[in-house]
């Protein structure tokens, strides 16, 4: 009985977030009469919330170092979009160069904050509070209250999708359009999107099987077969269903490629590299990590420099989607990112949390934002709801921790 309860607990903790995400989606599908999962809305949801996901990935590393946050990312998004406007529109530079300069701006801002935090030991809360004011100020000075239009690569990244190589070939064979009672049903699906989804899911399945076999051959421990099969099937269906949905709209968003790439890179860093391991170690116990040879100052510096770089990416994505550099963009973005991390299971004391968790947290935030907007809920009520969800998520985490023996 105890054993059963134990394994239930573990499953709940491991998949709790996914269950919560699914529950929230179902809730909003019901509340919005299905409009939440209209293909048009799904592809919009991805583009609209990309910034949360990008920022949450960087924020997760900050939080992992010991519950530290970066309050400046919203302002930094604004500064980067202002730099985009300045270089692309005012100075007339080519858009690839404008993007490069904007990314560098983000990185430099991150390095600036990382320096004060890691080497001068200014508490992160204070250093990034300063950054929040400074970057917002520079943003306004550059734009001087004006909104500058953006074009070129910016719009491609922000709103574009991969063109269909073989258009008008595959019909809506699952008749999802009828099922959802869409007003303008898509006659044909985006074949490129469908094909990409299929290829990716097959690669995933093969990779899991191959790595399991090779582990077995070399005498390492492997997951039970049943669990692996269940996982493979669930992922295969999820990936293909998602790509089918996007295929009903305008196909594979460029932004999604960027998101998947960032997720893959940072998951790799967090789980497979010494760098990632050292960040987790310092969040778990900074003194023990130092005495084991972890250069905690360097870690702190890198984490905040990286946060700056990712805020740069988020800035470009945001500016691209709005097709404009406007001075007031990015208000409250930092809170969305921090909220996503905590909803996604990060510990407020550091050392616990995953990139996967940050992504799921970001999606929960996104679905809530989007769902409540469709419902036409008052903006202020939306804010109340989001705030309470963050509070309950962390309270639940604290509660389940106090129940476990570790305390």
């Amino acid at each position, binding site marked *: 009985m105890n054993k059963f309860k134990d394994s239930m607990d573990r499953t709940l903790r491991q998949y709790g977030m996914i269950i919560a995400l699914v529950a929230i989606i179902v809730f909003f599908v019901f509340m919005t009469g299905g409009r939440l999962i209209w293909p048009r809305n799904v592809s919009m949801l991805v583009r609209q919330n990309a910034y949360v996901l990008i920022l949450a990935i960087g924020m997760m590393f900050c939080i992992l170092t010991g519950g530290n946050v970066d309050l400046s990312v919203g302002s930094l998004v604004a500064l980067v979009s202002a730099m985009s406007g300045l270089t692309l529109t005012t100075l007339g530079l080519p858009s690839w160069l404008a993007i490069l300069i904007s990314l560098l701006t983000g990185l430099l801002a991150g390095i600036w904050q990382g320096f004060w935090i890691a080497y001068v030991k200014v508490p992160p809360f204070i250093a990034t509070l300063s950054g929040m004011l400074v970057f917002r100020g520079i943003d306004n000075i550059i734009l001087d209250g004006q909104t500058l239009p953006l074009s070129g690569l910016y719009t491609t990244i922000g709103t574009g999708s991969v063109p269909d190589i073989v258009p008008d070939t595959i019909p809506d064979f699952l008749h999802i359009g009828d099922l959802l009672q869409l007003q303008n049903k898509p006659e044909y699906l985006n074949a490129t999107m469908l094909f990409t989804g299929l290829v990716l899911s097959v690669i995933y399945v093969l990779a899991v099987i191959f790595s399991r076999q090779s*582990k077995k051959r*070399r*005498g*390492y*421990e492997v997951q039970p077969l049943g669990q692996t099969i269940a996982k493979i099937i669930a992922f295969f269906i999820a990936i293909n269903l998602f790509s089918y949905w996007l295929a009903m709209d305008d196909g594979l968003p460029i932004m999604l490629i960027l998101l998947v790439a960032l997720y893959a890179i940072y998951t790799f860093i967090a*789980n*497979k*590299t*010494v760098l990632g*391991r*050292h960040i*987790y*170690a310092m969040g*778990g*116990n900074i*003194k*023990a*990590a*130092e*005495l*084991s*040879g*972890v*250069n905690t100052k360097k870690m702190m510096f890198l984490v905040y420099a990286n946060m700056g770089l990712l805020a740069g990416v988020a800035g470009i994505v945001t500016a691209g989607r709005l097709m404009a550099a406007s001075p007031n963009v990015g208000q409250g973005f930092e809170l969305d990112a921090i909220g996503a991390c905590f909803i996604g299971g990060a*510990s407020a004391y550091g*050392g*616990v949390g995953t990139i996967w968790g940050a992504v799921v947290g970001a999606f929960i935030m996104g679905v809530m934002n989007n769902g409540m907007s469709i419902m036409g809920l008052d903006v202020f009520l939306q804010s109340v709801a989001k705030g309470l969800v963050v509070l309950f998520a962390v309270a639940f985490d604290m509660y389940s921790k106090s129940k476990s*023996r*570790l*305390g």
Partner: protein
Amino acid sequence: MSEYILEMKNITKEFPGVVALSNVTFQVRKGEIHALVGENGAGKSTLMNVLSGIYPYGTYSGEIIFKGAECRFRNIRDSEAAGIAIIHQELALNPFMTIAENIFLGNERARHGMINWDETNRKAAELMKRVGLNEKHTTLVKNIGVGKQQLVEIAKALGKNCELLILDEPTAALNDDDSDHLLELLQTLNREHGLTCIMISHKLHEVIKIAHSITVLRDGKTIESLDNSVHVSESRIIKGMVGRELTDRFPKRTPNIGEVGFEIKDWVVYDPMNEERVVIDHVNIYVRKGEIVGLAGLMGAGRTELAMSVFGRAYGKKISGKLIKDGKEITLNNISQAIANGIAYVTEDRKTAGLIHIQDIKRNITLANLKALTSNFVINEDEEILIGKDYRERFAIKSTSVFQKVGNLSGGNQQKVVLSKWIFAAPDVLILDEPTRGIDVGAKYEIYKIILQLADAGKCIIMISSELPEILGITDRLYIINEGRVVGEMKTSEATQEEIMSTIIRSSAGR
């Protein structure tokens, strides 16, 4: 009414896996200064924590009778209300508050939550006069010396109208002048105000000078109570403190000692908080390969500071001196350099500095040497599991699997994980700081076996321990450290506990 103001009867206090106090009886007469002596870990502080309610009623067994009535303190406020005050080794003052504010901290002169500053200041001045503290009551505590801070603590205790004052190592951090002043003050308060004192101290000459009676604790048991009205001798007290059987507590071995593998030469370290103060004073130490060298001394003698300053300057400022390994001088500017040069330091502070409690066994073991698992920037996590399993079996780490979080292990098993971590780092020199602190006797034996195996594998081992029997049972040679200096060196086979203790006490007295 008995002649005793305090009687503690059959006190037993257990921590998970350790019996800290077993059937201790402790009696203090009204109006006397009673010294409580014993080695580190004998249970002195635990006994006083029981008395002052830090370990509340119900967490120990036995009876406390104070002023003729049985007491069941739930917390420190209860014991203070009854008239018992305790001054801990680490002072509990707020450095950013004034002397007067500190004296009445937690005991504010207030009505309806509003502080009466006039009365606070008047009373503070009165109390300061009583303890002979010549400062303004508005001076911030951080601006006065440790000796005077100790006086503030006493004034604070008196402000609570205490009848029984407990002092835990009151002179440990004081220089000779301040110590003398403090002892005289205690005698005066005792004589003129009838204040009863319990004093825990390692400095036996002080004990003999001012105490009326002396109780000796050893291994959590009361050994004897001595009447000090006709001054007893230090050696008489030491005999009570250390006299115990040493059979079979340590594994046997035949040492196989090679050439000198590691040397610390002319090592000088200053306090990072106070760059004027020398913490380590021209220390010279060498270790041969396959040799276990003990560093004996009291807590605060500077052994940990020595070890950490050697370990990639993890402690200290203005460090000078040479480190020589295998005949070549090495420079260790940070901890990763130290590890790369084959030095390992196993911290005394296992809980807060040795382990990452929220991570599992295997991750803790590999942390200090991840590069051995890494190729092309990728950590081989499968290999990591095998390594974890290997150490788990080799050292019999009691756990459900290598995936168990170390926070859930017992002290002895946690220490095995820490040792595994440093053995996996493949060092040539291991500095072990109190490797068996807080571990029960059975697990200690296993830790000793691991240490001996390491020595037999030709590693240089430096072991810091405050438990003399352990130093005598395990090491081949030992240095006696006191007040940051090496004050003695001897072959373990020729050393006795009495000799070590008296060397320490002699060197303190000679300063």
